[in-house]
């Protein structure tokens, strides 16, 4: 027994390597930290009163209140339809692990000046409209349009006209609001070793040309942020390039320790304009770096895919589960009308965008749309993470403050989703790094937990307590990329149901699917959805009570091999985990007013309840998307297969006498048609939390010694510390061998930990992260004998 504990302690000690990221802030280390990572749930899309539209809707929750709500420490007051004051207070059903208030950065200053009684602008029409919460939803919508009008036109004015009044300094007010947002985030951040909650500083960048949402959330890694929230009105130069440039100048390249991610969302309302084609490979690479994620689900619907059940076909495919949470119109604005799936803008849908990314990668050598998944609420009530399906009472202040308004005008909305990350600990650096490497999954609001790996996975088996460690050793996790390994890759997925709460037990799982998208050698796109675990018939709902009927699964696990795998085809794979059906919020709410969407005489009941409740009776027989029962779900970030990235790899640091360590890499890629060392040179970087070895060979350094053969020749051409480097580009694959001279590689920690190999030339960039294993004299990728 004692021995077992001792062995366990030793095993844990061997794990005490560095996390694969640098700590950029001063804080206490977390008491609980797991190198194999744990799931943390958060909402990084939350609005408070500093968002002009939220203020107009009557929301008066400030960022501090929103953080208190997310942490489960306080209640928020929901906007009433008649008074700015209150409807009722709400408390989150279970606290989040992390969150960000992301107010619309446009008009920070105007909102502040209009809301402040001592401001000379206070009595201006624009300001009284902002504060007029009893005008009814039509008037509120009208005011919202007039406030947000500059966001919908080309070359907008940078401020509203009230800012030109004497004594109205909107710029200064905007700065003070931005500082208030930062202070609220700082206060909510648990810097103790308990690490109970992580807040991020963030905001929303909100261009809406003619009602086409091209909205993006900006999330900062730590407390070092630009002096102003760089709004659409502050960032001319195109959407989103203007934003990227501003962030690069004032944050990423400023040398201040500032770091940020940009997350597009709500592409289902973008009119196909959220992701235009990049101008060239350079811009594609820039997009991949700036925008590694997309919010695939939120209060205003799902953006994954679309299927019209009445027509029996979808956009780009025939996935029947894509009827889930669809809005009728492809954008907002005066010309917004419902469109059939045949003319629906493809790039409203993330799955189509992912496929277009593969096609562009085939042409440019770079995938501009390599998007991992997040989910959020987009609540305008300050109720981040308030996603319980039962009892949901709206998220847009007075606009959806009553059952009648919820059902009559907003029945296609939903409580919103969550973002889950796999991170070592609950701190800003850990979670931000998980977001950046896309080791994330989105959920439609519930909290199932999903692991997803791909690769050789030779020693990965369901039921093994070593599953996760083995998978990190021989494969890549969700969000990663995979090259040709010589055999068809295997995909390991393990999901467990939502643990639930006392009030709302977690729903069982029904099945796990793997969604594959690919482009064949002729350039034609395809998709396929495969049930890999579970039972499509499992679980159901008692129509009389909404109680679950039958059972599903507490957990599902499988290792799946793609029977149609072709190593020449660019592809992505993601896991979709479905829960058993439950009553949608509309069903519960309609029943509370005496209208039962599942009853045959629903229409008669609705006639009694009033016109507002007619839409309670939309059924799957007469509506393309309405669903009185829904299947909540989780989407893992994809894993991308690239024919030209690292497939098989042998890599190790051999520890010698002090100062005599040697790193050796033997990497095998597929066909690298976009790699040209004569034109672009070559960079090789091996890193954990810092660089172990980093080599940059300028163009012309590598000597061509034969067809497709390159090597370092002569002592003078060799960069410091490199003993040998050779590159062989063949018809079917590419091999790279690198060996350092004996040197001090003390930055390679002697413990099992994640190490990244990155090889690049020009816009051709590859990266491969795995768990390297440490022994007395070696740190490296697992060899065959290590896996026995």
């Amino acid at each position: 027994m004692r021995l077992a504990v001792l062995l366990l302690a030793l095993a844990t000690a061997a794990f005490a390597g560095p996390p694969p990221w640098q700590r950029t802030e001063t804080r206490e280390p977390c008491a609980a930290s797991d190198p194999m990572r744990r799931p943390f749930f958060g909402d990084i899309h939350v609005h408070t009163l500093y968002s002009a539209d939220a203020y107009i809707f009557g929301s008066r929750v400030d960022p501090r209140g929103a953080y208190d709500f997310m942490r489960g420490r306080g209640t928020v007051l929901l906007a009433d339809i008649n008074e700015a004051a209150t409807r009722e207070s709400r408390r989150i059903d279970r606290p989040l692990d992390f969150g960000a208030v992301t107010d619309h950065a446009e008009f920070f200053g105007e909102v502040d000046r209009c809301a402040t009684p001592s401001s000379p602008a206070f009595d201006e029409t624009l300001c009284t409209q902002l504060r007029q919460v009893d005008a009814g939803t039509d008037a509120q919508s009208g005011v919202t349009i007039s406030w947000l009008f500059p966001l919908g036109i080309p070359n907008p004015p940078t401020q509203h006209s009230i800012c030109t009044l004497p004594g109205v300094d909107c710029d200064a007010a905007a700065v003070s609001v931005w500082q208030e947002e930062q202070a609220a985030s700082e206060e909510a951040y648990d810097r103790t070793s308990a690490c109970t909650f992580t807040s991020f500083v963030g905001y929303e960048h909100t261009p809406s040309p003619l009602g086409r949402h091209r909205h993006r959330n900006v999330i900062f890694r730590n407390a070092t942020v630009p002096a102003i929230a760089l709004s659409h009105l502050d960032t001319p130069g195109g959407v989103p390039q203007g934003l990227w440039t501003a962030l690069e100048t004032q944050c990423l390249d400023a040398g201040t320790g500032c770091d940020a991610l940009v997350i597009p969302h709500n592409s289902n309302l973008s009119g196909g304009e959220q992701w235009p084609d990049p101008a060239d490979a350079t811009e594609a690479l820039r997009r991949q770096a700036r925008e590694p994620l997309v919010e695939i689900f939120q209060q205003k619907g799902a953006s994954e895919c679309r299927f019209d059940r009445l027509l029996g076909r979808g956009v780009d495919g025939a996935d029947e589960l894509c009827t889930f949470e669809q809005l009728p119109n492809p954008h907002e604005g005066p010309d917004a009308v419902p469109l059939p799936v045949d003319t629906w803008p493809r790039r409203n849908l993330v799955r189509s965008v992912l496929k277009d990314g593969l096609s562009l990668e085939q042409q440019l050598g770079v995938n501009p749309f390599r998007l991992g998944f997040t989910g959020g609420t987009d609540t305008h009530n300050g109720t981040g993470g308030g996603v319980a399906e039962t009892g949901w009472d709206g998220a847009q202040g007075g606009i959806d403050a009553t059952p009648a308004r919820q059902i009559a005008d907003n029945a296609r909305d939903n409580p919103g989703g969550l973002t889950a990350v796999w991170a070592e600990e609950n701190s800003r650096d850990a979670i931000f790094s998980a977001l950046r490497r896309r080791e994330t999954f989105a959920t439609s609001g519930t909290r199932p937990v999903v692991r997803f790996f791909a690769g050789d996975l030779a020693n990965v088996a369901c039921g093994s307590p070593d599953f996760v460690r083995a998978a990190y050793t021989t494969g890549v996790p969700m969000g990663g990329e995979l090259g040709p390994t010589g055999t068809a890759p295997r995909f390991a997925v393990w999901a467990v149901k939502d643990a639930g709460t006392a009030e709302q037990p977690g729903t069982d799982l029904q099945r796990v699917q793997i969604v594959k998208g690919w482009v064949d050698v002729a350039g034609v796109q395809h998709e396929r959805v495969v049930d890999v675990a579970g039972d499509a018939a499992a679980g159901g709902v008692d129509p009389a009570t909404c109680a679950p009927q039958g059972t599903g699964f507490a957990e599902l696990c499988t290792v799946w091999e793609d029977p149609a795998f072709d190593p020449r085809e660019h592809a992505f794979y993601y896991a979709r985990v479905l829960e058993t059906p439950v009553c949608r919020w509309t069903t519960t709410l309609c029943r509370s007013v005496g209208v039962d969407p599942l009853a045959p005489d629903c229409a008669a009941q609705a006639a009694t309840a009033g016109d507002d409740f007619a839409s309670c009776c939309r059924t799957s027989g007469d509506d393309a998307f309405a669903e009185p029962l829904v299947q909540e779900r989780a989407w893992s970030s994809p894993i991308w297969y690239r024919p030209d990235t690292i497939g098989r790899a042998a890599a190790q640091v051999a520890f010698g006498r002090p100062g005599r360590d040697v790193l050796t890499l033997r990497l095998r890629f597929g066909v690298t048609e976009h790699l040209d060392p004569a034109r672009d040179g070559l960079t090789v970087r091996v890193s954990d939390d810092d660089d172990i070895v980093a080599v940059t060979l300028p163009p012309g350094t590598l000597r061509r010694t034969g067809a497709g053969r390159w090597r370092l020749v002569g002592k003078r051409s060799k960069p410091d510390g490199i003993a040998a480097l050779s590159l062989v580009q063949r018809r079917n694959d590419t091999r790279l061998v690198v060996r350092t001279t004996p040197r001090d590689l003390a930055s390679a920690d002697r413990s099992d930990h994640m190490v990244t190999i990155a090889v690049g030339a020009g816009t051709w960039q590859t990266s491969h992260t795995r768990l390297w294993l440490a022994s007395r004299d070696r740190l490296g990728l697992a060899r065959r004998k290590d896996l026995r």
Partner: protein
Amino acid sequence: MTRLLRQPAVHFVVLGAALYAAQAWWTPPVPATPVPDDELLYRAALASGLDQRDPLVRERLEKLGRFVAADGVVGEPERTARDLGLVGTDAVIRRHLVHAMRLALSAPGAGERATDADVDAWLAAHPDRFAAPPTTSLTHVYLARGRHDATAADAVLARLRAGDPATMGDAFLLGSHLDAATDDAIDRTFGPGFAAALRDAPSGQWIGPIASSYGMHLVRIDARQVGTLTPSPAIRRQAAVALVAERRDARLQQRLAALRSN
């Protein structure tokens, strides 16, 4: 002077004042109500001469004075505007003075900075604010739903208690150990009620089976950490921010009360 008396702006002010006076005279007496904060702040601003110094007020008066001057009034515009009583009647100036005074009264006086000792005292007075909650580290053996019955669970428990290593049972996605987990984190991992079931469990002994959302678990508490306050520099900075905000509010209320009693 005659010209000044012909100015519409002057008529407006004089008539307005007359109406105001008349209204005050005609209004039946009402029980004394406390002076509103804004009125107190406005009076304090005048008493401190803020209206004479504040550039924004002067700029605004200058502009208003020029507006009057455009109607033919001679003299320095700011002076004219003051003579017309616009410091009290112009809503913009009035609001600005109130706001500025509010900030001024909230501002710390000399020597009022939060010292290290202040932060210590504040942390001691707010123990729950930055204290790490109590946590539990545990090892568990998972028996998946539908694969084991209660008898089997008891048998596994007996073997664990007899010293078998904790390698029995099924693989659990979130691992067989939980380190320094709060009750909340335990419930979010296993389901509601799980932390409560462990509350009185002795450390170092296998107990169970405890039902979770996934099946049954045999649990050994490896360590319990009491909630502690460890004021690192980062936390002290957070505390200082909260302390300053709290003092600011208190100071304002105190000074308003003082003004009111004068």
